């Protein structure tokens, strides 16, 4: 907790609100969602919003399916409507179709939605159709509390395009009751000669997962497995792959691009670092639950959150699900940074460097933005600002199915989770520290690919890697295929166009 220095006014208010938890105000009477904190003063608080009058105006929002992100969108829409008199329509779309559902009307010159929810990496394709966040909002106190990583993710070349409403990251989740269990530690040592500890490298991760695969180690009568991961060929798969790749491929001593060589725009995706990661991943198909090779994010959450696996490493959701009150493994899980590697590829020298390496992957997350063609810009930004106001945000992050996760500096306080959600203090501390470290501490981050045609690139990755996972191709062959596909895409869209966009992300990485 020592690292939290710039505690903002708003977060002090949070602390105050926690202290006077039961002190209900008029807003929490009316809106039970915020009963824990009551309204928290701010630019977009309940109090402020109630002074706006949008009656007679309609706000249309395209968001994700219920419940993840979809339910809070609808809930806050209802509240917003009650406060301002606006009519708010919310449409729910499966994740895989959010991009196209907004992109089709954008390209056709239609403006059916005022607000579109999506992923941060849509930004390059969408930005020409989006209204930048006005200075008024960028400079407000509420925004000052947002971590720099999340400001960066939502901005394009220094200009904020998307509105931060959610925090996302990949980190390691593990079963604390197994890893910290002296009996298992001894057993593991006896059989493998190694320490059972929070895995520091992907190799350790693999060994432990394999060791704890396929037997009933928590004595519940069901078999347990090693790891639950997103391996289904859908739109999230590539993110899991990059999380496994960064440690091998992101060399802090090499500048100028992770996905491409910025100078030549040659894909790096089939380099030895990536091949190593994919080889690990193919190996991982041996310690996932039955059908694990077809797990989407939902399956991963159900699997780890339901106590079926030892490890999992994607978004917050699985951890939050595991820590919910009705979970059988509440307070039995731990959070840690993603594993690293014993060596890292240096593409300049063309050789492996045998040093420990670890690199956070700033994975895409949920964001929302306002359509340029919308006729209700002010109302739309007010809604987003209201969505993310402190009272709503605090209430939202406590509900696992909402999919709203910490992204404000004030979120990374262990007390919050201990007092509100009954977490074990040790787990809460570890969780808050892990996240904070990723947000503010690392100097070796990888930003997601945010270039024109990002879907084509990611789709190619998903196609290639899933062929490797399915055993259709060897890792090298699969990634060569991806690289060839990437080259074609680059050629089609234009190397300069892509370089221009990619340079912005690389600049962020290299600045560190």
């Amino acid at each position, binding site marked *: 907790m020592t690292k939290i220095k710039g505690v903002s006014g708003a977060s002090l208010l949070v602390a105050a609100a926690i202290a006077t938890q039961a002190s209900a105000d008029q807003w929490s009477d009316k809106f039970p969602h915020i009963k824990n904190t009551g309204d928290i003063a701010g630019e977009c608080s309940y109090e402020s919003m109630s002074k706006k009058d949008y009656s007679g105006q309609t706000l249309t929002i395209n968001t994700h399916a219920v419940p993840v992100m979809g339910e809070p969108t609808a809930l806050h829409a209802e509240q917003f409507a009650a406060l301002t008199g606006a009519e708010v329509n919310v449409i729910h779309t499966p994740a895989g*179709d959010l991009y196209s559902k907004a992109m089709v009307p954008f390209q056709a010159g239609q403006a059916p939605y005022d607000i579109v929810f999506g992923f941060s990496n849509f930004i390059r394709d969408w930005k020409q159709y989006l209204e930048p966040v006005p200075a008024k909002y960028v400079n407000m106190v509420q925004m000052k509390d947002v971590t720099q990583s999340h400001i960066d993710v939502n901005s394009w070349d220094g200009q904020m395009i998307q509105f931060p409403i959610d925090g996302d990251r990949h980190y390691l989740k593990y079963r604390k009751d197994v890893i910290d269990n002296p009996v298992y530690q001894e057993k593991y040592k006896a059989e493998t000669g190694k320490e059972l500890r929070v895995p520091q490298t992907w190799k350790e991760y693999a060994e432990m997962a394999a060791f704890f695969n396929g037997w009933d180690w928590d004595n519940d009568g069901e078999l347990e497995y090693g790891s639950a991961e997103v391996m*289904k060929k859908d739109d999230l798969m590539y993110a899991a792959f990059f999380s496994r790749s960064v440690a091998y491929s992101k060399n802090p001593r090499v500048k100028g691009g992770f996905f491409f060589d910025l100078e030549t725009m040659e894909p790096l995706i089939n380099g030895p670092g990536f091949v190593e990661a994919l080889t690990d991943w193919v190996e991982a198909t041996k310690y996932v639950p039955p059908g694990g090779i077809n797990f989407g994010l939902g399956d991963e959450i159900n699997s780890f959150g339901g106590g079926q696996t030892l490890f999992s490493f994607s978004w917050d959701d699985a951890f939050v699900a595991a820590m919910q009150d009705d979970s059988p493994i509440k307070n039995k899980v731990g959070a840690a940074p993603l594993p690293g590697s014993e060596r890292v590829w240096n593409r300049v020298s063309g050789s492996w460097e045998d040093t420990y390496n670890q690199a956070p992957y700033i994975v895409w997350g949920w964001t929302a933005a306002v359509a340029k063609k919308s006729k209700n810009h002010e109302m739309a930004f007010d809604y987003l600002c209201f969505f993310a106001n402190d009272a709503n945000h605090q209430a939202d992050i406590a509900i696992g199915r909402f999919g709203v996760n910490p992204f404000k500096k004030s979120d990374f306080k262990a007390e919050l989770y201990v007092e509100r959600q009954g977490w074990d203090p040790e787990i809460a501390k570890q969780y808050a520290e892990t996240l904070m470290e990723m947000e503010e501490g690392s100097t070796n981050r990888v930003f997601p690919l945010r270039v*024109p045609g990002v879907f084509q690139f990611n789709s190619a990755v998903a196609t290639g890697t899933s062929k490797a996972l399915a055993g259709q191709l060897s890792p090298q062959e699969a990634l060569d295929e991806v690289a060839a596909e990437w080259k*074609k895409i680059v050629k089609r869209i234009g190397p300069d166009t892509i370089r221009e966009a990619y340079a912005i992300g690389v600049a962020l990485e290299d600045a560190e």
Partner: protein
Amino acid sequence: MNFKHKYLFLLPGLLVLLAILIFPIGFTVRLSLSSWDSFYPALDFIGIENYVRLFTDDARFWEAFGRLSLLSVTTVFLQYVIGFGLALIVWKEIAFQRFFRVLFLIPMMTTPVIMTVIWRTFFHESLGPVNDILSHFNVAPLWLSSETLSKFTVMIVEVWQWTPFMFLLLLAGLLSLPKEPFLAASIDGAGPIRTFFYVTFPLMAPISIGAIIIRLIEASKIMDTVYVLTSGGPGTATETSSFYIFIKGLREFQFGYSAALSLTYLIIMIISFTIIAKLLVKLMVRGN
């Protein structure tokens, strides 16, 4: 009959259909000659570049075609055989005849995309009932994530959904057959198997051909099932043509290229259906 009134009957439907379709088809043709893409949404003109790419540099499209043929022909064949079998059984006296008839019709009344979501949970490899039951026999087939089995799973769902369609058409056909040929056959002392091959099947040939063609047309569009069940995976194991077009068009937003894919697909399909129809007529009608 030949009266001027005939146009009053034909034209409303024909013109409405043409009016609705003329723009989409024209636009698709134009689109296929452009490089419209997520980044560059405009109707530029690049000639037949998309088509060149399609024929010279897109093995995945042609693989998807092969997979589509395999899936649609196999499922329609299974649907036909099973549908015919069931229709034959409930055609004649059987206990709870009407109950079974209703029951057998129900799957086709359900929305494929919704039922497939249910099927996905049904075949869920660690949380679904199928593998739970099979675990007693110590097997755990990877219904959705094995390269070969996932195709089979898609087929199971398709067969479940659409066998009733065959069943309905064939049962209605059976019920409308004249009685005399059967009488004659029984007088000649033909057993049930001979009667089937020499009387029932030939009489049912025209209906069968119609039903098979219609089902093939519908099956060739297979999309919802794949979309929900496997997203075309694992790898590209269950990726069919329309799903591939969907990926290129609505996932990767290569509108221009997907338009070229669409048109090529349409032309191939129209030609194949014409040939298939002719072949079927030859095959099944010559049989008697």
